[in-house]
């Protein structure tokens, strides 16, 4: 199907189903119940999950396949975002030109950065990419303020020219749209105590994510993907097999830069604003963490990692003591307060602590990331003895 093997097509199908039914899957708890705090099925988070999924999928093409660890990919995301918002300010609020230009601009910028940084390998490469990203961030925050808006960032305003759009009716703010379909348009479905939200922007972003995922599967299964894994495995043998590893790594770098630009453009399409912090080194580090946490070099891993981190950031950080008291209110007062005291450091303002602990636990116990965790659970159920040396075993399959 679609030129994919049965297994890959199955994976794509599963991801497509997950995307389609995300509003249900992410909202498992009824409204008003204590557990509703864990519901993530609102448009902004769903959009972020798929957009950062795209970012991580792209990053994985570089890092997962070639092993080149870029610490500057947030710069491409940021540059894509700035390109998109400028399209919206100058041309039209339609998201199509914004997204296309963001991919293009990020691609060009990554070509430049990659061309220079790929002269070095290992940690030297990492530091070069980090240096470019930090320079982009520092300049965008300060001297480039006329172009980037600096600290306050850029948002569409009434007064922007927008030459392709007609004048806005009085009292309306410019809204990102796809040929008139507002990205914020939502429909709600109420089933008993449950409420599910279907958002236009989310489904557009999810569709783009599926295309991006499909293309990444094709790259993984193609000779290019194999060559990129060869780069990671043994560059010496590659060169002595008549293959020039430089253009291969550069291709991977630019492709992943374009994915980052696409994610940046989509972020703007869904939420029309850009701030320079998007390019700070911690943002670059975040996509590294997403990819490793999910399982670098695996197909589905980066999406899982991105979802995991963004979900933690948006859900756990919002749990305050009030919510905790709500959860444990059925207990006697003493125990209730005790439970709240125990959990308090790990939620709300302590969400970073939980994240840090989870990073450590995953790396220590699941070296292959969340994907390995899934495989282990799967193997438990299958009760099958997996030979770790065989290519179908858990530790060796390079592209699951």
């Amino acid at each position: 199907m679609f030129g994919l093997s049965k297994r890959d097509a199955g994976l794509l199908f599963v991801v497509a189903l997950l995307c389609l039914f995300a509003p249900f899957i992410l909202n498992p708890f009824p409204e008003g119940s204590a557990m509703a705090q864990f519901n993530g099925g609102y448009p902004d988070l769903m959009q972020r999950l798929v957009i950062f999924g795209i970012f991580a999928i792209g990053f994985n093409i570089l890092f997962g396949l070639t092993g080149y660890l870029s610490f500057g990919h947030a710069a491409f995301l940021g540059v894509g975002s700035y390109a998109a918002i400028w399209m919206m300010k100058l041309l039209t609020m339609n998201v199509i030109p914004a997204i296309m230009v963001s991919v293009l601009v990020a691609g060009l910028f990554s070509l430049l950065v990659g061309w220079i940084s790929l002269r070095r390998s290992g940690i030297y490469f990492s530091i070069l990419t980090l240096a470019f990203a930090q320079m982009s961030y520092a300049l965008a925050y300060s001297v480039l303020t006329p172009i980037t808006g600096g600290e306050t960032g850029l948002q569409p305003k009434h007064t922007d020219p927008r030459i392709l759009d007609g004048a806005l009716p009085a009292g309306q703010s410019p809204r990102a749209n796809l040929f008139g379909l507002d990205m914020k348009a939502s429909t709600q479905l109420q089933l008993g105590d449950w409420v599910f939200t279907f958002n236009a922007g989310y489904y557009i972003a999810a569709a783009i994510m599926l295309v991006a995922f499909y293309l990444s599967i094709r790259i993984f299964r193609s000779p290019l993907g194999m060559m990129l894994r060869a780069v990671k495995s043994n560059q010496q043998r590659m060169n002595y097999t008549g293959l020039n590893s430089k253009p291969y790594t550069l291709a991977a770098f630019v492709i992943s830069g374009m994915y980052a630009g696409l994610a940046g453009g989509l972020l703007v399409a869904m939420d029309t604003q850009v701030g320079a912090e998007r390019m700070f080194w911690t943002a670059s580090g975040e996509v590294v963490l997403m990819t490793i946490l999910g399982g670098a070099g695996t197909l589905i891993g980066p999406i899982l990692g991105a979802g995991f981190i963004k979900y933690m950031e948006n859900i756990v950080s919002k749990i305050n003591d009030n919510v905790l008291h709500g959860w444990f209110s059925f207990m006697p007062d003493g125990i209730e307060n005790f439970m709240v005291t125990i959990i308090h450091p790990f939620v709300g303002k302590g969400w970073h602590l939980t994240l840090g602990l989870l990073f450590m636990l995953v790396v220590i116990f699941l070296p292959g990331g969340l994907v390995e965790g899934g495989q282990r659970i799967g193997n438990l159920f299958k009760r099958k003895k997996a030979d770790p040396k065989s290519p179908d075993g858990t530790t060796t399959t390079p592209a699951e």
Partner: protein
Amino acid sequence: MSFSNLTRRGLIKTSAAAGAGLALPTYLSAASHAGYTNAPQGDTVTLGFNVPQSGPYADEGADELRAFELAVEHLNGGGDGGMMQTFSSKALNGTGILGKKVEYVTGDTQTKSDAARASAKSMIEKDGAVMISGGSSSGVAVAVQALCQEAGVIFMAGLTHANDTTGKDKRANGFRHFFNSYMSGAALAPILANEYGKDRKAYHLTADYNWGYTTEEAVRSSTEAFGWETVNAVKTPLTQTDFSAYIAPVLQSGADVLVLNHYGGNMVNSLTNAVQFGLRDKMVNGKKFEIVVPLYSELMARGAGANIKGILGSQNWDWKLEDQLGSRYSGTNAFVQSFGTKYGFPPSQAAHTCYVQTMLYADAVTRAGSFNPCAVVEALEGFEFDGMGNGPTLYRADDHQCFKDVVVVKGKENPENEYDLVEIVEVTPADQVTYAPDHEQFAGGSLGSCNAGA
């Protein structure tokens, strides 16, 4: 402690069909609400408090959150009512807002505009918040204000001081109680001229981002009007931690005043460094060298420790105002009393502004008789009030900026405890810090019109 479960949109509770769970699916579009975003249904209303809980401003965020919780308690009739006793508008009566019990959700802005917007969006989309408040930087305030404008909810800014928030980036759905860079400059300049003389040479170190730019511009133009000369202005990176390279050349320039347009960690470090260099012990041009920090908070003063002693700066409010300057600032003691009783220490200016913003919002809704953002905007525009700790105050309709007296403070020489770090030098009356809505430092934006959302 009892607390009912947080609800989203509350609409489920009232839906008769909900209980059965067998009813046919009901299709709702956002537009079928009461004509504006997140119209509260049922007997509760949800407010969103979006403050920095991680990152360098986490402590300031924590103080803001305390104030919000206190405000909610007072609105729902708990505690001693705080400023509701002194507030000139008597619309609020401790039964929530328009009879609906106030509930709230919290989020972490991380002092990053992206994270702040994500958090605010989750409050609007998931929790059904009808008003967002909080924040500790202008970048976040501008980003969230723009979001609230698009989404059709009210934004009551927390601590944001850059001119841009009610200048080039102002929005109809956003309101700022806190003062701004221009006001700091205008309030400080006469007192600086008075204390340090009119023949002074100033050297500015400015944080290299929007707030820094507006503050430098404001302080420069105000002090130059009093005869000061600006010998140099150097921009410093936000990520700088060691300012020695910027401070070392100050004395060589012949300047006799150093103005630190820095906030937060930048200010704590640059001031500490400047004092280390012994600048304050020097005599230049026959005058004692002085350092000025246009805006500083109680937390920054605490971070700077003994270095803050004698440093002049401006504040939006101080908890000693009413005790020291009398009943013009009524409301101050009421607030300090209830905050101090609940938490054991006096509130910061960030806490004050967040508390007041919540009260003002609740009052505006009550007076308007509706949660509709456009009705709230109308009720707040041009609203004159008193008894909220700042003396008579105006929410100007032209730019949604509050105009009130500005407090000029000085680091205390012998603080009695860690909450008693500043002393009030003088209060610059509101009319001296008022500017025309089209003042050049605020040019380039327009409010647009209010957006009620779906």
